[in-house]
């Protein structure tokens, strides 16, 4: 049955009540737990997000917990557990790449932005590798990341690129923060956040500054038969591949080339090129390590409360300018760089 939450107590308050330990309030706590169960999943997710502690400026200690499963070539989840947190290297490339990639993503959010895991509360990170047969995809199912091995003709295994792993895990972060709807412009922003934090994880691991980084998503997962370097480029959207079978990378870099389509949930993987390129412009204008100033601004914007789940590009752009203003001060070069970056892609904040 599908219930709609229409109680007067807001979900975040229910969540707090439900967690109370005080025996004098046990009845209220029990009632709140009951009410929470009737919330729609999306409300519950947002309630979790609101409850999540936001800590900035200092690293969160020791709550990284991962668990890798192996689906053994079947399309069944979760598969067999092969590596728990702290477990030995398995020798299976996909399982070990997933384990390491989750760790790298966790470290970016924890050490740079002070967030403990995707939900801000230390949630365990689950992934399944070897999903399906010749399976050409990686996805987030609301609970875990899932990686295919590719068909061997166009795609190799999807864990081979750290940016694929960090992209998928960032879908979890978005789910627990803004929960951007996966359709049209909000869906393209959802995709873009996964690409932006996806490349930042890799840049930080490799110690690449904004000028030196390749700004590619999925480099190394095409086989050598494909004419292409990666699936997407934040630096030059539309140039990642140009192949006789796959066609050309369809991503636009600016609003002038915005693609209207009913495919792909309204082009969520296509028009994400526009906010992707805005981030690239802001990060390269500021220079240095992109996960520092530019990454912090985007992260602050996501957690600012200024991003509705049906957010469009201009609303998101305004939130980033406001976040830059808050963190670096009005009239700062950071505010100027962010506003100019959006202007360059044709989005008026």
């Amino acid at each position, binding site marked *: 049955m599908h219930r709609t939450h229409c109680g007067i107590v807001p979900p975040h308050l229910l969540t707090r009540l439900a967690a109370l330990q005080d025996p004098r309030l046990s009845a209220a706590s029990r009632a709140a737990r009951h009410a929470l169960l009737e919330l729609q999943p999306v409300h519950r997710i947002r309630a979790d997000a609101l409850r999540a502690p936001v800590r900035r400026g200092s690293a969160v200690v020791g709550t990284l917990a991962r668990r890798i499963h192996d689906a053994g070539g079947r399309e069944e989840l979760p598969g067999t557990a092969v590596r728990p947190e702290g477990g030995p290297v398995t020798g299976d490339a996909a399982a070990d790449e997933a384990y390491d990639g989750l760790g790298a993503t966790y470290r970016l959010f924890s050490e740079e932005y002070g967030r403990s895991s995707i939900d801000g509360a230390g949630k365990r990170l689950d992934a399944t590798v070897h999903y399906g047969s010749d399976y050409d995809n990686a*996805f987030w199912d609301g609970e875990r990341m899932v990686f295919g091995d590719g068909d061997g003709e166009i795609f190799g295994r999807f864990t081979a690129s750290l940016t694929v792993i960090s992209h998928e895990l960032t879908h979890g972060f978005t789910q627990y923060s803004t929960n951007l709807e996966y359709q049209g412009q909000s869906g393209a922003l959802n995709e873009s956040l996964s690409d932006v934090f996806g490349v930042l994880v890799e840049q930080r691991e490799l110690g690449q500054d904004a000028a030196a980084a390749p700004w590619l998503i999925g480099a190394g997962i095409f086989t050598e038969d494909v004419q292409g370097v990666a699936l997407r480029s934040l630096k030059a959207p539309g140039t990642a591949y140009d192949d006789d*079978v796959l066609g050309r990378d369809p991503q636009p870099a600016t609003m002038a080339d915005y693609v209207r*389509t*009913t495919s792909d949930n309204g082009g969520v993987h296509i028009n994400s090129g526009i906010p992707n390129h805005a981030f690239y412009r802001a990060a390269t204008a500021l220079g240095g390590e992109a996960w520092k100033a530019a990454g912090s601004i985007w992260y602050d914007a996501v957690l600012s409360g200024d991003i509705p789940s049906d957010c469009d590009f201009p609303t998101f752009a305004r939130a980033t300018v406001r976040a830059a203003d808050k963190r670096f001060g009005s009239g700062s070069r950071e505010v100027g760089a962010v506003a100019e970056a959006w202007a360059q892609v044709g989005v008026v904040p």
Partner: protein
Amino acid sequence: MRIEITRSGGFGGLTRTWSLEVSASEAEQRWLPLAAEAEPGPAPEPAPEPGPAPGEEPTASGGSGAHRDRFTYRITIGYTEVLVPEERLEEPWRELIDRARAAPVPGPPAPSPGDSGPGTDSKQQASDGPGAGGQESPRKLL
């Protein structure tokens, strides 16, 4: 009768199209009834406007639940179209898709109507993502 299957979305956002010929009786007895049971084809969605679109209502046709980066299959049987998210793809459709992927690639497919302009609300929005359609070659079959 020709059945065309277009797969969009996925991590890469690559759109692929496969097709196969089935007899009229197979289409009428097996696939059209299945399509009639499935949810209706692509609802005419308000095309996202470039630029601010205040008050634009989110459509219900978005990705189902919390799944991200999954494929969406658009199956066209004659004038009937169904849209099936990968996570809700049941066995008969899987068989059809496997057959289409294994089918020999025919000559250049008939040009599909591209995205219609704003205001079009017919079911003919068989829009392929850019980069799709008309460029299949026998080199590889995904």
